[in-house]
């Protein structure tokens, strides 16, 4: 027995040494879904993050050290997302993280940020709760649904919307969107009818769609991710359901919708946060073109850029914070996030205070665009 004990100890010591020996790098934890329901989107975000990291390292790294991404899979599962955060903080000693794609995943991670006082940049989630619950370690670059609704407000009367039904995911993301958009629409004098929900993994939504077909609304607002949207558009066509459709949430991936739903997607409208189809209309056309060129050079599908740009901007924002902090330590980085100010691929990235006084979260205000699928292409609708 003593022999085995010595061997185990030796291995443990060696491991500890290996972990501790990376003082020459600045590490950023990346907590994304690489398997499970959101595997495709999480992988896009990670690939975007890698482009940013390589770009930064090519320019000489951060604080004179190499930037290293510690990428972990949260398996599209909130419990796993919290466990991954704990592992990144305690075992990998990452002073700052990016994650965790979905709202339910991010919300599950947030208590860990409070426990360990480590900041996280939220790149994709859109539930309002994330930046209003009083967690000062959260800095978000994606728009919460209230902000999305606010940007969409001026277009409501131009589209001639009279009565709207909602079909949303039965989770923080979907129900949050229905609440925020519903509030905005009522203020605009638009009637809100049904709010139907669907499970995240559901493949057959014909029951919900049959109900929506029977309602007297003119528009259906849908909040879900791309795979389910493809199914919805196909099933709407099969049911002969022809109403104006506007999707929200920023995870629609219009190129995949066009490729997979075909003519069933014609005329659908989508609120997105990035315009890769029209780089000249983005806030920083040159950066957009460079990013898209690098993305294509790496052999990734163009369809992925609507997700991956967030990973790219997220890592760039964290890098700005680390540079401003002057050291790779959680408290200094959390403080430095407040002075980050640069133009991302979808608008300025600078954090405004959000949530209860004294423990505000940071919320950036990206651009939101309404696009339409017409003749199998993405266009800006004429309003």
């Amino acid at each position, binding site marked *: 027995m003593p022999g085995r004990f010595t061997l185990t100890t030796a291995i443990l010591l060696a491991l500890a040494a290996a972990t501790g020996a990376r003082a020459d790098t600045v590490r950023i934890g990346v907590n994304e879904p690489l398997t499970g329901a959101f*595997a495709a989107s999480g992988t896009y975000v990670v690939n975007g993050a890698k482009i940013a990291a390589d770009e930064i390292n090519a320019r000489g790294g951060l604080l004179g050290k190499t930037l290293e991404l510690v990428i972990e899979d949260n398996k599209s599962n909130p419990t796993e997302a919290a466990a991954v955060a704990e592992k990144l903080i305690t075992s990998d000693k990452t002073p700052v993280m990016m994650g965790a794609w979905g709202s339910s995943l991010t919300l599950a991670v947030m208590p860990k940020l409070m426990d360990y006082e480590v900041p996280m940049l939220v790149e994709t989630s859109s539930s309002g709760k994330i930046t209003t619950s009083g967690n000062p370690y959260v800095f978000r670059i994606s728009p919460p649904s209230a902000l999305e609704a606010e940007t969409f407000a001026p277009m409501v009367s131009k589209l001639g919307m009279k009565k709207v039904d909602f079909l949303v995911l*039965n989770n923080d993301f979907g129900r949050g969107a229905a609440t925020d958009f519903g509030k905005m629409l009522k203020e605009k004098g638009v009637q809100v009818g049904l709010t139907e929900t669907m499970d995240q993994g559901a493949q057959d939504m*014909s*029951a919900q769609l049959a109900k929506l077909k029977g309602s007297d609304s003119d528009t259906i607002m849908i909040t879900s991710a791309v795979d389910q949207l493809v199914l919805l558009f196909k099933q709407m066509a099969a049911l002969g359901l022809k109403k104006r459709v506007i999707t929200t949430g920023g995870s629609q991936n219009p190129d995949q919708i066009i490729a997979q739903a075909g003519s069933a997607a014609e005329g659908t409208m989508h609120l997105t946060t990035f315009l890769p189809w029209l780089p000249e209309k983005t806030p920083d056309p040159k950066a957009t073109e460079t990013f898209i060129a690098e993305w294509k050079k790496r052999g990734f599908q163009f369809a992925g850029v609507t997700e991956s740009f967030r990973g790219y901007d997220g890592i760039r924002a964290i890098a700005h914070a680390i540079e401003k902090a002057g050291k790779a330590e959680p408290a200094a980085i959390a403080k430095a996030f407040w002075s980050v100010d640069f133009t991302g691929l979808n608008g300025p990235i600078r954090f405004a205070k959000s949530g209860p006084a004294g423990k505000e979260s940071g919320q950036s205000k990206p651009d939101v665009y309404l696009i339409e699928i017409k003749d199998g292409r993405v266009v800006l609708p004429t309003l």
Partner: protein
Amino acid sequence: MDQLIQHLVNTLILGGTYALLGIGLTLIFGIMNVVNFTHGALYTVGAYLTYLAVAALGLDLFLALPVAILGGLLLGALIEIVLLRPLRGQDIDTTMLVMIGAGIVLQSGTLWIFGGVAKAVPSPFPEAPLQIGPASVSWLRLFVLGAALLLIGLTYALINRTKLGLAMRATFQDADTAALMGVNVRVIYTATFAMGSALAAAAGALLGPVYVVHPQMGGPAELKAFAIVILGGLGNVTGAAIGGFILALAEELGAGYISSGYRDAMGFLIIIAVLLYRPTGLFAKAERVG
């Protein structure tokens, strides 16, 4: 009223799908008594085989279906020979754990090979739906219903009308006696598992073009298959088929008239009620195989 008709048409279409999922599992879970956690993964594999056959080989959807079914048959036989045969006689927990592992391997394998981005299988049917009064239904889904009913009929006939079916029923009732009567028990075990797997692959192959194909598609399908089998009575092919339609009806009407948020709960509420009052399933007494 129009909405009710649409809900009932949807029930018929969805029920056919559920019934197909249920009968494959009832063979394995009900007759063989193996808690099969690879059913959903085999459903996924069937869908990916169709995708490969249509997208990569350029086959017609009608030709891709037999390819997927054959693939399911072979993979099922392989799982039985490699994993289940050495475990025969072990307790149910051991087998269950091995099947959970096999399910994870298959699911991660499809993710590894095909990636997480969902694939679409093109449909040879017109996109404009068929109008039946106030209700509409897609041609593709009508075809799926027809194919599902055909497969259910064939399975029923095979179990109840052929010598192979007789040997299967005899084996799982009493393997020793069946062996004494000249039944090659090992072959029957493999054949039954392979057949159940082929039905799972067939369900995936039929539904791939209806939905989209992705590595996680098997999870919810598997859960529903277990529910249907329990609802219909273990090992009862007719019961599983009817159970599929009952689950579809409960989901449609539950989502349409009570709350769509509890759509998936409706089916399980019915199952709890059935198990409380008829613990062996709705149709177990009258027609239980064996």
